[in-house]
């Protein structure tokens, strides 16, 4: 446990009682935040997709993009859409154009 705490700060890595307390807190945080991570990422992706859609002006918003995505039976998920928006913005534009014209 001392090695787990070896990069803590100040007394938190030197004093035994503090080490046990802080290590416990660290484990609890990590356990809880692993669940939160999933939520956080999804929020991040949604924000990014929203930003990208508003730039391209094909759809007015994220909600309209997702609605049309589902209407056209695309199951690309948000993680992917967000990656695409960042790495390959042209692809996202192409996808949104396609689903807009199909409808």
């Amino acid at each position, binding site marked *: 446990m001392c090695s787990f705490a070896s990069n803590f700060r100040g007394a938190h890595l030197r004093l035994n009682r503090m080490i046990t307390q802080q290590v*416990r807190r660290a*484990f*609890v945080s*990590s*356990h809880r935040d*692993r669940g939160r*991570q*999933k939520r956080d*990422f*999804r929020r*991040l*992706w949604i924000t*990014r997709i929203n930003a990208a859609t508003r*730039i*391209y002006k094909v759809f007015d918003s994220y909600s309209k993009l*997702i609605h049309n*995505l*589902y209407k*056209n*039976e*695309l*199951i*690309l*998920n*948000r*993680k*992917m859409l*967000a*990656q*695409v928006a*960042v*790495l*390959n*913005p*042209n*692809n996202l*534009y*192409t*996808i949104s*154009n*396609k689903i807009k014209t199909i409808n």
Partner: protein
Amino acid sequence: MATATLPLRLLPSKTLTLPFFPSARRPFASFAAASSSPRSWRLLAAAEEAPEPVEVEFVEPESEAAEEASVPEPVEAQLAAAGAGKDADIFAVVMHLHRLFPWLQIGSRQYIVMPGRYIYTQRLKGANVNDEIILNKVLLVSTRDKAYIGMPVVTNAAVHAVVEEQGRDDKVIVFKYKKKKKYQRKLGHRQPNTRLKITGISGYEDYPADPILDPVAA
């Protein structure tokens, strides 16, 4: 393709997405409800094989209709040794920057995949090391000029992969604690995973393609 086994840390189970994608690692699966389609897709093994993707030129294989066991061409003979294409509960969304890359869905997660790289997926039960696997659920295939956008799946497209290793993720410590109640439980967990090396993408050519548009020009 000198670095044939560059870890594709883009999107598989352990990566942090976006600008830091190659370096940061974070365990994670895709939890978007969107990715779990209510219908159950039965994956059919596509019949054909993928050549080693070299440069932009692919040796185009004959794509037969899905549903037959794959008939490996001599080029792939050594890969197919352990077994022809398997039905796998896997989607592929592959997207491709310079060459061709598809976007797959595997085990309810989606991945962007490029030939020559590997991805970590959930453990595929029946697969042994050096099995050739065909991933059928290709959601999008993108080349430099064209995008084949699957609605929802690019029909007959297949991503060929070889099982490199069946290992486990890094350990996560599951720690439950209630303060002032003298309750704590500590448990370690390593999730089994499979590393797949993507060898090629095929079968997408007949699908209607969309040219990739440039939003700035439009």
